[in-house]
């Protein structure tokens, strides 16, 4: 059963230079307990997507088209009051920097009890018991004393554990994690990854993981989406894409990883840089940086072609698949 279904989602920003669209034509589904990774470079629109799913965009940004179906309700058109009852309880979010998500003048316990009592009618005492139990779940040592500490008294890894505990507080069906390990050191990152994975599997929680790190994504998710300049360019099973990427951009991203190349040799690089949103090239947005760019790529935006288990937005892949179909 589909837990989350995003259909042709489009986000626009009103700016002085006119309307820009940091997100165009984004569609995907996520089943219950499924883990989906979204990868892209800065400016690809992945964080905007996370905010748009929860309808958290604030002016000048707004959802200008499409639907976000969660549990048969369209979050894109729901009233603010109904949205508030879903955010935090049914769908939780984990952000990159725990120091900015946690309130520095409230103890961890106060923050956890506050959000519990905002959604459920329970006493402070009961809420505290649940909070301590959740802190224990994320392996915080001596949770009963930690609960009365302020965020600044905890280390970075500890703080991120607290935000995960807060996300799990109301037993959500879906967690959206926006770069949850980017601010952490590698040894701490490894701990947080395995913790988050264990919790998602044992509680059957769906996960949308937004990251720029292909290696983190490959460890945590079964399916993945590659975004470029506000659009999905490739979508499919993580293993299949990493082993045999079809879109030239995905291939470029994988080949640029230092760990896959022979030490001391030149890395394969993608020329150029990610385009600004005011100057997205016509046709396929990737065409100026693509080594396989053809005439059609500069004129027509590619549609999605199914190739294996993946769906790819590329004219070259489309031609390849079509010619293979004719051969048969």
């Amino acid at each position, binding site marked *: 059963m589909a837990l989350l279904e995003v259909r042709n989602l489009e986000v626009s920003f009103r700016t002085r230079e006119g309307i820009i669209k940091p997100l165009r034509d984004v569609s995907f589904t996520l089943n219950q307990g499924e883990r989906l990774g979204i990868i892209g470079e800065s400016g690809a629109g992945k964080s905007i997507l996370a905010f748009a799913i929860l309808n958290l965009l604030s002016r000048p940004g707004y959802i200008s088209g499409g639907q976000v179906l969660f549990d048969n309700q369209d979050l894109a058109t729901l009233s603010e009051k109904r949205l508030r009852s879903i955010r935090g309880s049914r769908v939780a979010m984990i952000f990159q920097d725990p120091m900015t998500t946690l309130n520095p003048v409230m103890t961890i316990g106060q923050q956890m009890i506050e959000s519990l009592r905002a959604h459920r009618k329970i006493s402070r005492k009961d809420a505290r018991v649940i909070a301590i139990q959740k802190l224990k779940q994320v392996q915080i040592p001596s949770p009963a004393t930690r609960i009365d500490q302020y965020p600044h008294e905890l280390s970075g890894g500890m703080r991120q554990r607290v935000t995960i505990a807060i996300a799990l507080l109301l037993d959500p069906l879906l967690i959206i994690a926006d770069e949850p390990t980017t601010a952490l050191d590698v040894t701490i990152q490894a701990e947080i990854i395995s913790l988050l994975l264990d919790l998602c599997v044992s509680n059957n929680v769906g996960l949308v993981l937004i990251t720029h790190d292909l290696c983190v994504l490959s460890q945590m998710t079964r399916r993945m989406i590659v975004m470029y300049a506000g659009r999905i360019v490739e979508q499919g099973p993580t293993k299949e894409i990493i082993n045999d990427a079809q879109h030239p951009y995905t291939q470029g991203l994988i080949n640029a990883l230092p760990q896959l190349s022979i030490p001391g040799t030149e890395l394969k*690089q993608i020329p150029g840089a990610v385009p600004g949103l005011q100057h997205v090239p016509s046709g396929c947005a990737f065409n100026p940086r693509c080594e396989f760019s053809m005439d059609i790529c500069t004129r027509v935006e590619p549609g999605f072609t199914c190739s294996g288990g993946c769906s790819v937005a590329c004219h070259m892949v489309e031609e390849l698949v079509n010619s293979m179909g004719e051969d048969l």
Partner: protein
Amino acid sequence: MKDRQELPVIDDQEVLSNTGQSLGKKIPLVSDTLPLLQVKELKKNFDLSGDLLDQFRFRGGRIIRHKRYIHAVNDVSLEVMPGEALCVVGESGCGKSTVARLVMGLLRPTRGSIYYRGQRIDKLSEKALLPYRKKMQMIFQNPYASLNPRMTIDQALLEPIRFHNPDMTEGELRERKSEVIKSVGMDPSWGNRYPHEFSGGQRQRISIARALMVDPEFIVADEPLSALDVSIQAQVLNLLRKAQQQRGLTYLFITHDLAVVEHFGSRVAVMYLGTVCEVAATKTLFSTPKHPYTQALLSSVPRLWDDQPRHISLPGEVPTQIGQPKGCVFQGRCPHANDRCRRYSPQLNAQSDGSLVACHGIEEGRI
């Protein structure tokens, strides 16, 4: 020091400029067994005590003066050989950036000494340091902060070379500038633009160009890739390698990214809490890590095609460096720690494969 020595370019090196004038970067004349840079028992404390009045404490009926320090770098000894890229890795707070700044003379060491080509440089005055500044250049992490937003690219590139070579003519300067700009893959006609007109990757190219302008032989790069996107990281890493091959540069490369180290470094020094725990050739370190911390660090790096990530879990968190550390810095989190580790700090010892490891357990053959 003013005259640039013109030395023949080695044949098998591709000459990058097509402006006619070759760079003529000299290959180090010192024999390769002498280190270009040598750091001996370097120590840096940062004072946390605050004002004089803040330092007084009332204790046991007496007023005493109380001082607190962060021991950012403790007895670090390193050697950088000519032509190599020595990578210093470690987690945040391990003192790797402090080492870079001490080497560049941006910070004064509390104790210890730094030698450049055998000359001691840590006690020199600003003026006496000038010739060394020309040979040693630094690339910083954040190209948004390290370029002056009110200077055009031309101004930013020409300022250091004008300062260090006052007798160069305008023509020579211009020629040199366009040669360097081309070598970092940028268009010389962009010189009148300001930094905000460029993307992060381009800005990092400009900061590399600025470092290359004075024709250095040694570059300290402090996390030069961290602020960049994945596809841009590869471009900049390739550029740094090209510059190394063509100009015979030596790097001290500070990073937290082990994948970059494996690709770029010729030798690696692993730091933990202000001390060096292992130094080894890159291949040796990645195939047979010896120090328990190095093993845990390497196992934490996420890899592609790794369905069941299995990392060595370290108990606890990185402790603070306030107060004098006792024993091995890693003992609190080390699964192999014993009484000796808690009391005495280990020294770097040479192993059979040429790596240096500071660990009592390995010394005793326990690990």
